[in-house]
């Protein structure tokens, strides 16, 4: 039988040496940390919701930016011919990519409502419960943490408990500052987003156990994303004419929202690599350090805590720290050899169920290309040019939104994001060549 095997006695070429596993895991962890920084930064422009723009319109425009990013960045790094070749190996994954995109859009729209009702620094940790959902699905469906040993299980369960306590603390802090009906609606929106995002990791993990390149997967993911978001915008804003009117009226802030989507894409691509190389149960908690970045941006750059009572601020800070502690406990329970073999069994399921070429699965798990690097075509350059033109056009019409922002703090936070971007890109290139 042509299948992945956990048996060292099985015949065939060695798949991965332990050194290679460790290198891939290090890259996965670094990508998770970078993802946290960039996903956190991407939420900052959603603060524009306080300037009176509809939450659904904000989400729609962000998704438009995401669409530009998800086609232009993979076109530069991988090329559309490479993307086509990957999808031809596992065409069924297009369905999962589209479902995942739909989940993302609905979750993102919910977060905009949550930010409106609760504020960025409180809403963030609540939807970051997506890590817990991701862990559950990872264990149930992809054999993550199987054969992990009691230490890793304790770290994950203990971390989950601490996260829960931190979340409760934050919810209490918010409810003391916000009208109860608004708080409960915001909390429901934030937790709902957490469930949707947590479930979105099912398609992610499925794709990467099948050997898919993250850059190829996100290109189709974004079709579901834009399709669902357009449907939501049309339904909630009141048809194409009304949508057009609102987009035109918001042209002063179009650039910032498209940029938010683009920044999100950078974070999300790193998150995809983290899921690929350290799994859902570790990759997502690490990248959910965006909670801390959200707290930093909210508290330091936007001064969200001004006017809050001392006890409430302390509750929000302690809640965030507790959640971060829980996430760290989960993150550093690194997979060992026996657990890694269980991942391979999950990969075998995909190989057998969908008849995916075993070499494709194998090369994907090793972090190397199954096909030679494709040359860039005119289509790639066209996509890059179109995305650039969209940003230049909207940038020329952009006005600085009327929100208070501490410039010095923002520059420091941005510099840290860029540093992490450079380190992760270098590591990905060195170890996997972006595979």
């Amino acid at each position: 039988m042509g299948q992945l095997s956990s048996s060292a006695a099985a015949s065939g070429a060695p798949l991965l040496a332990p050194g290679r596993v460790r290198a891939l895991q290090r890259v996965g962890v670094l990508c998770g940390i970078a993802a946290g920084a960039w996903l956190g930064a991407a939420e900052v422009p959603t603060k524009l919701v306080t300037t009176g723009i509809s939450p659904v319109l904000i989400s729609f425009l962000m998704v438009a930016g995401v669409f530009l990013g998800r086609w232009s960045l993979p076109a530069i790094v991988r090329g559309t011919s490479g993307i086509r070749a990957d999808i031809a190996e596992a065409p069924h994954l297009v369905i999962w990519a589209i479902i995942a995109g739909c989940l993302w859009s609905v979750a993102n729209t919910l977060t905009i409502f949550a930010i409106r009702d609760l504020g960025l620094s409180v809403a963030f940790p609540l939807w970051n419960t997506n890590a817990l959902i991701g862990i559950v699905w990872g264990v149930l469906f992809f054999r993550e943490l199987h054969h992990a040993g009691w230490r890793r299980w304790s770290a994950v369960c203990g971390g989950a408990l601490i996260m829960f306590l931190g979340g409760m603390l934050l919810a209490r802090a918010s409810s003391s500052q916000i009208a109860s009906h608004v708080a409960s609606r915001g909390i429901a929106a934030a937790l709902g987003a957490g469930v949707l995002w947590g479930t979105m990791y099912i398609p992610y993990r499925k794709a990467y156990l099948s050997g898919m390149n993250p850059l190829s997967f996100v290109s189709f993911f974004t079709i579901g994303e834009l399709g669902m978001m357009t449907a939501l915008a049309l339904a909630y804003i009141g048809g194409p004419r009304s949508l057009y009117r609102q987009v035109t009226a918001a042209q002063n802030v179009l650039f910032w929202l498209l940029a938010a989507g683009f920044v999100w894409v950078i974070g999300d691509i790193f998150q995809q690599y983290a899921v690929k190389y350290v799994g859902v149960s570790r990759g997502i908690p690490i990248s959910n350090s965006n909670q801390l970045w959200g707290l930093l941006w909210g508290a330091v750059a936007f001064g969200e805590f001004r006017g809050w009572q001392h006890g409430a601020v302390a509750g929000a800070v302690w809640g965030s720290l507790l959640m971060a502690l829980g996430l760290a406990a989960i993150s550093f329970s690194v997979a060992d050899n026996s657990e890694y073999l269980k991942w391979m069994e999950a990969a075998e399921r995909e190989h057998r169920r969908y008849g995916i070429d075993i070499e494709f699965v194998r090369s994907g798990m090793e972090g190397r290309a199954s096909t030679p690097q494709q040359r860039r075509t005119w289509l790639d350059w066209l996509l890059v040019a179109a995305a650039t033109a969209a940003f230049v056009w909207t940038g020329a019409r952009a006005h600085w939104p009327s929100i208070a922002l501490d410039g010095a703090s923002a520059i420091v936070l941005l510099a840290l994001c860029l540093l992490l971007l450079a380190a992760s890109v270098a590591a990905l290139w060195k170890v996997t060549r972006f595979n």
Partner: protein
Amino acid sequence: MYYYLRPAMDKEEAIKRPETQAINWLASVTGDVHFWVPTVVLIGGLLLLRWVS
């Protein structure tokens, strides 16, 4: 310790295998729990969005 992957079956063997022949793409997708869980959660999310908005 090394992890092993068995080499792919040769094409003739693959053609003979009934389960390989019987791969039905659509049935595989709709019979996959990985498909239904995200779909159900998506529907729930849309209902929640309707409520909060």
